């Protein structure tokens, strides 16, 4: 080389602190995977930002749709179940009760169904560049989390309308929101990679999501479940999360046993998904 390039010394310095990457047939180990994911956490922000930007640019209703979905469902359930079926609602006005269940439910259902297709939908990126793939289903949940926060603004308005004031147990609300987010990440990521193996997961999913809704205290209170079935019922992590979310919101007594089981099941599920996600992804990407 004829001229000394000013970049040379810099790049040599860069090389000495640059990462060592070993690529072989064995499944990648978990710890380097997690540190890779942490290092590229900014990509999570950009993926969420991309989806929000595109969605609010393309959809005419934009942000209104996020609120309309649970509101319309609330109206339907109020008319059909509360008026006709005389559902109990723990002493809370039924529309408020239903909306407070449908907001976290809409978050979970949308996260799971969008998350399940997320790796397939992004296959053109996944097959062309390396980055921690788990960021894709997590970003999908991130987008719905923004929706959840918007829907919560309406929830606050609705609570004011029904005259429910401030009280101490509101401080527990974030605990249940974090629980719901972890659950959405676990189930969404798991299904996204399962969907690479079995392409009809997407076909089966709407039915399963519907069943999950009726197996959870969304439009009815958990207190209507017979005591003999309560323990089994609470192994559905969504039951404890939605029930606890609503109890915290309305200042009702929190079912601590149910909450504890729900959070334990959620964290166990998340740990399982983290442990298998990358191994499955590495095996299945050949099919994309």
């Amino acid at each position, binding site marked *: *080389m004829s001229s000394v*390039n000013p*970049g*040379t010394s*810099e*790049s*040599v310095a*860069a*090389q000495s602190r*640059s*990462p*060592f*990457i*070993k*690529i*072989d*047939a064995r499944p990648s180990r978990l710890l380097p995977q997690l540190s890779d994911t942490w290092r*590229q956490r*900014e*990509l999570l*922000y*950009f*993926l969420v*930002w*991309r989806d929000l*930007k*595109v969605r609010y*640019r*393309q959809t005419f209703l934009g942000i209104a749709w996020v609120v309309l979905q649970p509101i319309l469902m609330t109206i339907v359930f109020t008319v059909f179940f509360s008026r006709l079926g005389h559902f109990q609602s723990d002493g809370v006005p039924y529309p408020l009760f239903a909306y407070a269940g449908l907001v976290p439910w809409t978050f979970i259902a949308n996260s799971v169904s969008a998350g399940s297709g997320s790796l397939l939908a992004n296959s*053109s*990126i*996944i*097959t*062309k*560049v*390396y*980055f921690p793939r788990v960021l894709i289903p997590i970003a999908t949940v991130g987008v719905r989390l923004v929706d959840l926060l918007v829907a919560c603004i309406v929830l606050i308005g609705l609570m004011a309308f029904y005259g429910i004031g401030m009280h101490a147990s509101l401080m527990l609300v974030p605990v249940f929101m974090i629980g719901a987010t972890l659950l959405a990440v676990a189930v969404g990521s798991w299904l996204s990679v399962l969907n*690479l*193996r*079995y*392409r*009809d*997961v997407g076909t*089966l999913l709407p039915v399963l999501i519907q069943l999950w809704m009726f197996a959870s205290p969304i439009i009815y209170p958990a207190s209507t479940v017979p005591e003999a079935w309560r323990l089994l019922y609470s192994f559905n992590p969504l039951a404890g999360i939605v029930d606890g979310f609503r109890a915290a919101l309305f200042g009702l007594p929190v079912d601590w046993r149910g909450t504890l089981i729900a959070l334990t099941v959620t964290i166990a599920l998340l740990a399982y998904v983290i442990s298998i996600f990358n191994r499955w992804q*590495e095996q*299945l*990407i*050949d*099919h994309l």
Partner: protein
Amino acid sequence: MLPIIQVRDVSKQYRVTRSAMVAPTLREVFAAKIKSIVGENGHSAYNDELFWALRGITFDVRPGEIVGIIGRNGAGKSTLLKIISRIVKPTSGEVNIFGRVGSLLEIGTGFHPDLSGRENIFLNGAILGMSRQEMRRKFDDIVGFAEVETFLDTPVKYYSTGMYMRLAFAVAAHFEPEVLILDEVLAVGDAAFQQKCLAKMKQVSAQGRTIFFVSHDMMSVRQFCSRALLLEGGKLVADGDVIPVITSYLESIGLQ
């Protein structure tokens, strides 16, 4: 100088299902299970064929080399790049890399047509592994190289093919990884753009960075690569100075 990449006996086997590489459905899996329980011969769903996309590839690359990879379609060039880029796993063998790898296996990976040029620079940079701080620092250089200043806030779906390619190449080239992988990305550009990209690549390699460059254009391989690898049927059949490797490639396809 120590190698920046060591490729050791790398092989890749693909499983091609009879139904053209489509993943089985749950329904098929259950059907096959039931058939095997009932006693019917249930082998039909798994009539896989195996084929080796790469076999026993070994070579080292030193920092600053521009390595041209040539060979016919299906020779394994893209598979090799995908393994070095960490997109797919090898079936056996290993690759050791001492540094960051940036791959541009396709022009505009991760570009979103509805987002503006400015937004896509940040999105694409993040996908390649740049930090936001790094992108802000290089933003003006990227825009200048791509010559898209006046269209920065226009959605890229309204860009001409040339503008689109310039922007995509600019982001990848300014990422400054220790190893830059380019797959046929110059094939679509006009002569002026190709020259500009090749000059940028020279500059990148002069900084001690390594470039892998797949191309069917023997002119640009001859002009810019310091070394060439010839793949044939998944095997590395020639490795060395550019001119003899190109000659044996052209002979193998009966052009010389």
